[in-house]
Structure formats: C-alpha cells, structure tokens
C-alpha cells in the first residue's frame, strides 16, 4: 500500500488579478522508502503541491479547492482537522525548506529549535531530547556540536544552517521527508555535501523522500522516480532512468536539451522559445502547446490527462498517447 496517495489536488490562489491555478489536478503516489523527484521551473507548482500536503498554504489567498492526499491509508491530509495534521507533521512527515537563512528562528537557540519536534510530539523528555539533538547534529556533520548547539542561527553559515534544518527534520525519524529545493540557496560546494547527507540519512532511516528541484542533475543521482511539472500540472511521470533515456513528453525533452553542459561547444545555447503561461488565465488544452514544436490543433482541446503509455511511465502529451509522435 502506498505511503501517500495524492488525487486530483487543486490549489488555487484568489488574487486581485484573477484566480491563479498554482496546482491543477495533481495526482501521484509514493511508496514507503521510495525516492521521488519533482522537477519543474519556478511557478510550475512543485512547491505549492508540497505546501498543500503539509497544510502550509496561506488561506487566504490560497485555497485547496479539491482533491485528497491519503497518508498511510488512513488520514486525508487535505481534509483532516488541524489537530490531526499537527500530530502528523513534524513527526511522521517532515519538511526541509529552501532558504536556510530565513527558515530558522533567529530569536531562538539552535538547541531549542532542534529538539522542538521531540517535545511537541511528546516523544521524550527534555533531558533525553537534548541528548538526541546533540547526536543529530553530529550525524549531519556539524563540527564541535556540543559547544555550538547553544548558539543562535546567525552564528552559523548557510551550509551549516541547512544541516541543522535537516537534523531538525529527521530527529523524529519521519516516514516521509519533503525536501523543497534544499540545495538551491547554498553554495555549489555545499550542494553536493547536502545531497550526500540526505542520501545517507535516507539509507539509514529507510524513509521516503520527495525531492523538489529545478535541477535535473540532482534527481538523476538520487530519485528512483521523477515527476515533471509544468504550469501547475504533471506532464510526465516515470522511473528516472526512463525519463532521461526515453522521455515521452516534449517539455521534458526540451528541458534536457537546455542543459548547457550537454550541448556541443561553439553552438548557440538552446532555450525553450516563449515564456511560461500566465496561470491566472484559463488554459484550454495543453499548457505547453504554445511553445511546443510538435503542437497541433488537437493539443489545444481539452481534456489533457496523464495516461500510462508504458508500465510505470505516464505522459500528458496527447500526441504521444495516440502514438502520433515518438521522442
């Protein structure tokens, strides 16, 4: 039985300029211990999806219009009470955020923030929690942990703070970790370290990980399966290897073509023509069609749905679904 089943999640933002469909009919599953990547540009809806699952979408102006997210076969994260949600988040589902500089409370000591999940969920008393906190800090590679645990966040560097965030998220040994672009805001040298750290922890704890990123390279090294999102919708879902070698959606292919390192030297860099759509305006048909080299008239007509075309591999491209093109 999957650890988390998300069905038809729709999260819209009601702004002055219209209704922004940030997450539009998102469905996916993740098994226990599985590593899932969610890839997409800024504004593709990948972060909003995760925030929706964790109940972190500001409502107003956001609103979860419909959908379900069944966790462990029992609780619908989108519909349960705040009380139930608070029992799950921080304990069984944890999240690591993008910007370590702003995501830690500057007015609290590291120690207090770090052990807080243990105290909130009554897992152990304070003395024991402090011991575990220290151990957690050492596990994530913070040097001189015993002395530094009483410091404040601004005394740590960005990379160190991200490690603290990870330690804090994992201290309750959650079943699912959602990592929202954890390496985007840190230096390149630190990125690799953070990635290795999460890999190691995932191995040790056997937990499921959802890794959200805009960087295809990261998912290649870590996630067994990957979802590609565009304009609030999932356009492709596949085992990561197949995603790279036998992609079945023009957008994914365009993304891969855009990786500078993979392009022949001396030629003009490939960029996807056009710009991402304005999500406050209704999009009939495929959202990528205006920029797609394979687009035809049928691409402008709804419904556009994710369909499995090979075992474990689904795409939303209607032309691929009807075998008109192969990429």
């Amino acid at each position, binding site marked *: 039985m999957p650890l988390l089943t998300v069905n038809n999640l729709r999260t819209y933002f009601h*702004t002055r*300029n219209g209704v922004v469909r940030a997450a539009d009919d998102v469905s996916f599953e993740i098994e226990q211990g599985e590593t899932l990547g969610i890839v997409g540009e800024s504004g593709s809806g990948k972060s909003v999806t995760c925030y929706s699952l964790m109940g972190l979408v500001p409502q107003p102006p956001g609103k979860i219009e419909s959908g379900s997210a069944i966790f462990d076969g029992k609780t619908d994260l989108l519909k349960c009470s705040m009380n139930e949600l608070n029992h799950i988040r921080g304990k069984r589902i944890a999240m690591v955020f993008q910007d370590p500089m702003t995501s830690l409370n500057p007015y609290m000591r590291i120690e207090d923030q770090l052990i807080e999940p243990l105290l909130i969920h009554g897992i152990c008393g304070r003395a024991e929690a402090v011991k575990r906190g220290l151990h957690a800090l050492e596990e994530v590679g913070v040097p001189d942990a015993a002395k530094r645990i009483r410091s404040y966040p601004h005394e740590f560097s960005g990379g160190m703070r991200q490690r603290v965030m990870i330690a804090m998220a994992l201290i309750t040994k959650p079943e699912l970790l959602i990592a929202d672009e954890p390496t985007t805001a840190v230096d390149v040298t630190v990125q690799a370290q953070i990635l290795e750290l999460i890999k190691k922890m995932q191995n040790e704890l056997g937990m499921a990980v959802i890794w959200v990123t805009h960087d295809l390279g990261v998912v290649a090294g870590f996630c067994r399966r990957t979802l590609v999102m565009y304009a609030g919708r999932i356009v492709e879902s596949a085992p990561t290897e197949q995603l790279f070698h036998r992609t079945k959606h023009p957008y994914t292919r365009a993304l891969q073509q855009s990786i500078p390192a993979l392009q022949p030297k001396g030629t003009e860099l490939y960029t996807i*023509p*056009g*710009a991402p759509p304005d999500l406050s305006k209704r999009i009939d048909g495929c959202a990528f069609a*205006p*920029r797609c*080299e394979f*687009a*035809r008239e049928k691409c402008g007509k709804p419904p556009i749905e994710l369909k499995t075309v090979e075992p474990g591999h689904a795409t939303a491209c209607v032309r691929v679904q009807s075998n008109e093109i192969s990429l």
Partner: protein
Amino acid sequence: MQDTLANQAPNDIQFSEAEVGTSLWRDAWHRLQKNKMAVASAVIIAALSLVSAFAPWIAPYSYEEQNLELRAVSPRPGHWLGTDALGRDQLTRLLYGGRVSLMVGIVATGVALLIGVTYGAVSGFFGGKTDIVMMRTVDIIYALPFTIFVILLMVFFGRDIRLLFVAIGAVEWLTMARIVRGQVQSLKKQEFIEAARALGLPRWRIIFLHMIPNILGPIIVYATLTVPSVMLLEAFLSFLGLGVQPPMSSWGLMIKDGADRMEECPWLLVAPGVTLAATLFCLNFLGDGLRDALDVRASKD
C-alpha cells in the same frame, strides 16, 4: 502547415492589451485615491485649513471681543458654539485657534524639516566618523524629554509665539534626521547609484536627480505625520499656560477653560476638544495613507 506558435520568434509575442508603464508617483497617487479614508481626511483638512486661514474675514466677531451681558451662554443662534466666561464668542475663538494651530503646524514642521533633512543628509552622505558622531548626538538627545526642555525654554525666555514655533520645531527634527540619514545611506549602496556613477554622471546630478526623488517619499510621509505631533505639543503647552497667551486664542487654551468650567458649561470643552481630536485624526490617517501609497513593498496583493 506547421504554422504553430513555436515558429514565431519570442519578440513577436503580442501583449493582449497595451501595457503602459506607470511612474512611482502616479502609482502612489492611484493607490492613495483608492484609500477613501485618506481622501476624506485630506478633504477635511483642506476645508479646515481654508476656513482657519480666512478666519479674520469669516469670523462673526473678533477673538477678544467681550460681550459681558452674554457671558457663558450655551450654544444659540448668533453664538453657534456659545460664549465663555468673559463673553467671547466660541466659534470665533475656535477659528482663530485653528489659525494658530495651522501656523504652528506649518512653521514648526518646516523648521524640523529644514534642520532634520540637512543634518540627516550630511550625516548619511559623508558617513564615517562624521556620521558616527552626529548620530550618537541624536541618540543621546533623543532619550531625553525634549518636551521638558521646551517648557524650560518657554519658562525662562518669555512667551513670544515665534519662539514657540522654533522651540517646537527644534524638538521634532531628530526623527526626521534619522529617517533621512537612513535613506541616504541605503541609497548610496544601491546599484542604480553605482550604475549612475559608472555611467559617469556628475555628483550633483546623482544627488538631485537620483537620490532626492527617492528620499522625497519618506520625507513627505513623515512631515505629514509631524504636523499633528506639533499641533499636539502646542495645544499641550497652551493648556499648561506656557504656550499661546490670552487674549489670543488657541485650542489648547480653550480646552483648559472648558475643563475648568466643565460642570456648568460643558460646551466650552466639547467643541475645541472634538475639533482638535478630529484634526489630529485626519492628519494621522492621511499620513498613514500616504505611507501605504508610497511604500513600494507594502503591496497587499
């Protein structure tokens, strides 16, 4: 046949409506207009100012004219706000009091602006030791009860109303200096100033055409918020007998008279009290509205 959108070069992308750029000021004006409370406040203040400014021509009586037969009478036709213990018409005194408050507001705020902006700009622009010394002085003075010093001044050196204006202005410049200095400092570091320098623009051009327009916003906001403080201080001093002297009229004086006699003549208290509070209210609302309109980051959507 392959006439897809993808074949169009990105530059051909059409905008659905012509997008006209708006300057910061126009945007701010737009936002201010939408804030109905601020607009209403502005209208009320404008009306009050006009009426007060033309008091000598509008008022039915002179502010010191005493009608000893109609002493301390309640409001009635001919004396719409009643009279005080000496038979002076309250409506007239209210208008003249408004005149004083208006003058204090403008002059004292002007003094505060002048001193504050200069001080702050110098401190912020030159930085270094000059800045440190200047700001420490401000810090130390700020912590002291300057109101008390104004009282001292008034006690010791007479009660010329002009001294009052200067004294009050001298109290209020501190915060203005801090604000201006902060603005100048952060502007100096901004990239568009560096860009201007990199383009080779002369310093005076940078200061006047690039820096000052960007500082104007907070200055206007704070000046609008200083006026009510100033008016309050004048009323406060007059109430204590240390500001405007009789037979001249000030709202503070009127309130004091009203408070002394409130059991028998409550109307003496209500009219100036309500007027003062209402004026301060409108000024504060207008200042808040201006601040919201001019603050680029305070967009609520």
